[in-house]
């Protein structure tokens, strides 16, 4: 398929890998963080890290929307899902995210009407088909996903649907990135930026990273050669003592984002004063809630949710993984007590989570190294 096959060309990959070797200084160690879980998945699925020199390390960042949802918010979702008459809809990965005591899948097994959907539009269709039921959509995701929820709510309002609401957990990528950059235990040489978030907000909002923190950013696509080329672009900036935002993903990312998307986001959502991120704690202005004009569709206002903060399990080190402080396999319970089948932490739930991606792909390479 055009725009896919050419970005998986093994010969071009080998050329890029050779160029990367020629860019780095022997004896110096480099750390580059991929912010987005989609990149983490690509890196492990295609073995991108195996093509890098030994002194170039990829660190996995907080850009998996499932992984950063705190357990208390999952409990809120389960409380709404268990209400009589509610059809609770969500994306597939959220079904298995552990709350304080159980998952949405457990609630479904106990009789709650929990349904997996591929888009908020599917949830809206269910609401139209079941006017006698209350249909709730659990909205998660970064700026890539938020426009879809916003457009769905615009449709719901236009159609005057009264049995549809949204439990909003949309988050924004820039505040946690700033929080990471403020972290004293973070040692990074640059960032691979989230390409599809940038189709919405553009590359421009990332300019604070080189300006205020002296770190290069390369906005990247998601095919393996996209990621490999982006790593090369970051390392080339370091080698040439440059520090700026570069756009590797020019085939879809405009510098100023998508004006229509930004407009509908501003109409439907407003920033929350604070939001808890799993592993990162409370970060100001880092999440969205429904604007007053859409209050009738706000499940948090419509239903009584517990809103209780739940501490992460002591054995779980998702926080350190999300900050890139430790690698997934360095967690005490990785691959033993915590597996994709029975996850303790959220990083093991979504395949975009660093632990699940590493469990599914990377551990085999590590086993080879150990042998």
């Amino acid at each position: 398929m055009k725009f896919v096959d050419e970005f998986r060309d093994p010969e071009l990959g080998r050329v890029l890998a050779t160029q990367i070797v020629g860019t780095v200084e022997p004896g110096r160690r480099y750390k580059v963080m991929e912010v987005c879980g989609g990149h983490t998945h690509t890196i492990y699925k295609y073995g991108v890290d195996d093509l890098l020199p030994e002194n170039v390390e990829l660190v996995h960042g907080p850009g998996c929307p499932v992984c950063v949802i705190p357990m208390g918010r999952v409990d809120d979702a389960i409380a709404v899902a268990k209400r009589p008459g509610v059809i609770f809809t969500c994306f597939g990965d959220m079904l298995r995210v552990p709350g304080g005591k159980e998952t949405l899948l457990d609630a479904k097994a106990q009789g709650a009407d929990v349904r997996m959907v591929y888009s908020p539009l599917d949830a809206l269709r269910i609401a139209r088909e079941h006017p006698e039921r209350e249909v709730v959509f659990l909205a998660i995701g970064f700026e890539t996903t938020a426009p879809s929820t916003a457009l769905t709510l615009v449709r719901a309002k236009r159609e005057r649907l009264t049995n549809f609401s949204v439990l909003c957990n949309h988050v924004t990528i820039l505040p946690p990135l700033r929080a990471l950059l403020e972290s004293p235990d973070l040692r990074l040489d640059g960032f691979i930026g989230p390409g599809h978030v940038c189709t919405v907000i553009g590359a421009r909002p990332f300019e604070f990273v080189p300006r205020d923190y002296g770190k290069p950013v390369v906005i990247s696509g998601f095919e393996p050669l996209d990621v490999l080329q982006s790593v090369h672009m970051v390392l080339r900036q370091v080698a040439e003592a440059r520090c700026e935002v570069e756009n590797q993903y020019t085939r879809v990312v405009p510098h100023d984002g998508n004006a229509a998307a930004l407009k509908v986001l501003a109409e439907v959502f407003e920033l929350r004063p604070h939001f808890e991120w799993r592993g990162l704690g409370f970060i100001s202005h880092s999440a969205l809630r429904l604007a007053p004009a859409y209050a009738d569709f706000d499940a948090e206002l419509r239903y009584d949710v517990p809103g209780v903060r739940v501490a992460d399990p002591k054995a779980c080190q998702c926080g350190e993984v999300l900050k890139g402080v430790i690698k997934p396999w360095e967690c005490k319970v990785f691959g033993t007590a915590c597996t994709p089948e029975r996850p303790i932490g959220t990083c093991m739930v979504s395949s975009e989570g660093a632990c699940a991606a590493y469990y599914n792909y990377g551990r085999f390479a590590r086993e080879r190294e150990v042998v």
Partner: protein
Amino acid sequence: MSCDDAHCVTCADEALAMRVVEVRDDGLAVCAGDDGVADVMTDLVAPVAPGETLLVHAGTAIARVA
């Protein structure tokens, strides 16, 4: 596009390239990709025409691939 597979595109910051098959008059387009056919909201990239390739995430076209 199944969440039962190893990869759930909806939950990630990932989008699929899909080709416009039919443009409807309600802001939706029927689009085809590797995983089948789906209704897609095209408000963010309108107007679209049959044959164009869109980048689709969670039922919404977030960009036109060019």
